């Protein structure tokens, strides 16, 4: 119940968060796609991207975030990211190169490399973002269980477990 009050009271934080979220998103995209030129890449971008949703969850309650990014979507996204990465390698296999040899992706080896790196970084980013958000979900959705634990463990619980 305390939680609700806190959430209702902190309108200021909520408003500021609403402003911050697009900026962080923008930064995440910057890190993702500019990783070739500066520091950063798929992994970092994924984490930053996830932090948007985590922030949203912390401020507005995780239940609302779940409406934006549903667990099912996360499950599929994290799989797709990994598949995108591994699939890029398979495509280069089909194009006659070795696995993960991006040079064969396009006629020009260097732009092939660029596209390959872009593709795998995207895969990493998607997977990492989805994984991080789902980690957040996992570690916050168990909260309601806490009240139901009896200390120390009762005899009946011992029996039921064996």
């Amino acid at each position, binding site marked *: 119940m305390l939680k609700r009050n806190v959430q209702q009271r902190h309108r200021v934080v909520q408003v500021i968060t609403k402003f911050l979220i697009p900026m962080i998103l923008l930064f995440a995209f910057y890190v993702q796609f500019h990783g070739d030129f*500066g520091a950063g*890449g798929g*992994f970092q971008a994924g984490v930053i991207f996830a932090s948007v949703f985590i922030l949203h969850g912390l401020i507005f309650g995780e239940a609302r975030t779940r409406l934006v990014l549903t667990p099912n979507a996360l499950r599929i996204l994290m799989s797709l990211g*990994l598949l995108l990465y591994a699939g890029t390698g398979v495509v280069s296999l089909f194009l006659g190169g070795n696995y993960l040899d991006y040079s064969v992706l396009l006629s020009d080896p*260097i732009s092939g*490399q660029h596209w390959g790196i872009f593709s795998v*970084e995207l895969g990493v980013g998607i997977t990492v973002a989805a994984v991080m958000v*789902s*980690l957040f979900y996992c570690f916050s959705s*168990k909260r309601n269980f806490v009240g139901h634990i009896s200390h120390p463990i009762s005899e009946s619980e011992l029996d039921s477990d064996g």
Partner: protein
Amino acid sequence: MSVDAIVIEHVIVMVLLTLLIVVAVGIIILNDLLTAVILSGLYSLLSATVFVAMDAVDVALTEAAVGAGISTIILLGTLSFTKRVQKPQEHNNYAALIIVVMTGGALIYGTLDLPSYGDPNSPANSHPQLAQHYLTESQKEIDIPNVVTSVLASYRGYDTLGETAVVFTAAIGVLSLLGLRRRRRKEDPLLTDKQQRKQQNEDN
């Protein structure tokens, strides 16, 4: 750059590492887990600085995002489910201390022959087909300014595939343990009826 600059660089790293030791000792001593978690967040931020001082900006960014961000959040999440205070340990574990001292001694023994810090001619920094190749040839072969990215995604792309798989594995591991969906939910006042229903559908 002059010799002084090198000295300053070294001194910065030394100071930062000393700070890190202090924080780590703090984590050992403190019984309050919440403080320990906050300290470990601080520790991560400090280590990000160390990485910057060691020219590893990508690592620094990652450490900041992961160590200070995600790790701290899931640590706090865990603490909110469990206990905040660690049971004080009455006696010191001397066996553990002996093991640790022996391991540390072995490591120190190993460092005696290590190339000195910042040595450009060390085997690691001068290997023609690895370090040198990445710095000299990657422009020609991949043409991306950030060498770390080209090594990460292309030269050692297979490692990164493995890394992604590790993240994925951890995710399904956590899912199998904790489950993504909320098993017992109280009504959330911020949700409209329609949203509630949607969420229920989603969960079923």
